[in-house]
């Protein structure tokens, strides 16, 4: 009997501290069969339970080609995430999923790719970046843009450098620089002028705070990007992940089943910014 709301027990294999408030958890289903069968597409998320504390939606940040474990990159912002951050290697959590749609990578063959991310929005994109990296020859040029508050909030620092070496264009920016910061300063949108990709034959994948997405879309349109070329992953309150709880409803779409990835063309029709 499949119970969509039922969490499966999973074990934390390792925890790494990315920044002061962000940790990456590598986990594996305790049921080995489940782990073997487990497949996901970049952009999908899972419902992560800390028993007794609650359940939250978290994007998968590892490569879809890595099948023996799953990675989550999680910022400590509230009660469940705080409880998660206290867990250590060997502790058990609950997992359901994967849920949601994904970035339609198969449609992006032969195209250049621009990743735009803000804060922990890099997490779901990381999964897509790994997927692209794995099949590098099938895609065109790749640029990764990343913005965050301050240098100490930079996520996956080593990996960003590694990707750069592997001839991805990687650009980072912070709002509040310190003395040692060598990268750019300002919002992610300020990086667009450095992007070498032509607006034609390039697709954009973005994830981050809603304001970032809002302004990125505006700026990129100015640069000649068509809505059909741009995809954004949205965030909404979620309690179930399977369309039952209705919290993530935006217009006639549900972020958990119709999203979280939306094409900018569809976004135009949705009341994303409601007040």
């Amino acid at each position: 009997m499949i119970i969509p709301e039922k969490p499966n027990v999973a074990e934390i294999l390792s925890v790494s501290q990315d920044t002061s408030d962000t940790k990456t958890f590598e986990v594996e289903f305790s049921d080995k069969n489940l782990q073997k069968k487990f497949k996901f597409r970049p952009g999908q998320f899972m419902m992560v339970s800390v028993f007794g504390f609650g359940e939250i939606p978290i994007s998968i940040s590892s490569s879809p080609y890595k099948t023996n474990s799953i990675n989550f990159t999680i910022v400590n912002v509230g009660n469940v995430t705080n409880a998660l951050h206290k867990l250590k290697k060997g502790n058990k959590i609950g997992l359901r999923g994967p849920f949601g749609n994904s970035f339609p990578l198969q449609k992006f063959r032969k195209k250049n790719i621009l990743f735009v991310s803000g804060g922990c929005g890099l997490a779901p994109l990381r999964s897509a970046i790994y997927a692209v990296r794995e099949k590098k020859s099938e895609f065109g040029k790749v640029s990764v843009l990343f913005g965050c508050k301050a240098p100490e909030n930079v996520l996956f620092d080593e990996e960003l450098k590694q990707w750069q070496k592997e001839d991805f264009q990687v650009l980072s920016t912070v709002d509040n620089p310190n003395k040692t910061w060598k990268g750019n300063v300002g919002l992610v949108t300020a990086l667009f002028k450095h992007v070498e990709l032509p607006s034609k034959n390039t697709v954009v994948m973005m994830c981050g705070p809603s304001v970032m997405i809002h302004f990125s879309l505006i700026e990129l349109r100015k640069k000649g990007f068509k809505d059909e070329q741009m995809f954004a992953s949205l965030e909404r309150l979620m309690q179930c992940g399977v369309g039952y709880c209705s919290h993530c409803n935006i217009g006639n779409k549900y972020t958990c089943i119709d999203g979280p990835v939306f094409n900018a063309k569809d976004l135009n029709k949705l009341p994303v910014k409601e007040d």
Partner: protein
Amino acid sequence: MNYIIKKEDLPKFLEFLQKKFDQVIVPAKNKTDATCFQQYSGQELFLETRTDFSAKEFFRPAKEKMFSFKKKNSSFNVEPCFDTAKRVIFGIRPCETHALHALDVLFIKFFGEDRFYSIRRKNTVVIALQCSKACENGFCTSLGTSQATGHDLLFFERGSDFFVKVETEKGKELIDSKFFRHTSDALPSADISCKNSLDTEDIEENLYANFNHPVWKEESERCLSCTSCTQSCPTCYCYTTKDEFVFGSDTESERFRFLDSCQLKRFTEVAGNHVFRPSREGRLRQFVLHKLSYYREQYGVHLCIGCGRCITVCPVKISLVEIANKIQKHGLGAKK
């Protein structure tokens, strides 16, 4: 096959049902004089019109335990907690059978079963009661929900008798010869005419197209965000889950789900106190659009079944029929 039962035999019939089912649910008054569905215990029934509160408590309870988590040898046992009581509901109105149908679509048919709902649903025998007069604010005739659907037995009031139409095998099993006798009379008429009427033509598109119509703001200025509408509505199903530790225990916890309401700010509030739908206007619009537009587009049925409860219970008399009709008449897409 049709039957007749004397009205005076109804209590005996209900007692008979009590022997067969764990719970017999009937419409009656509660402590505060509100009419609602409750377990039968010989109390006086309320059969005049539809109840103030719907029967959703028995399908989608306000608070239900979903799982219990027990820590065991550094791992966890995850035990789902199903409500397997066998119930029979007597006296739900035709419109509400449509409410169950609308919920079935989402919770049983569309993505795979929500067991917490479907087990209750399948364990419940539905005895519907045909309305003989239109209720205060109902508009079921506009939505085609005045004839029952998916029920097991249908009762019609006829003088000092009930005329009973058997719809399913499950229903047939309840026809006990002690109370029922066979009849070949024609089916009584089930026509009623509601005072309220909703213009449903292209309503999904029109309402959505009028997202920024001034009527939303105008009406919402009065709105108290008291959530009475969503709570009395037989189809409002949105929920929030919460985990709680069993008091005094480190190792045992439980997951509950609670009925929530889109009229509350917390409905869209995420960590960091960001609220995606903060304004009263937006929240009111969400209610009406979810009922009359979004759900139909997603799942093919309206989530509103025209019972008029939300209109009756609103302390400041906001009516979704009035709002929708206003838009149908004056908004974008209005037929000239």
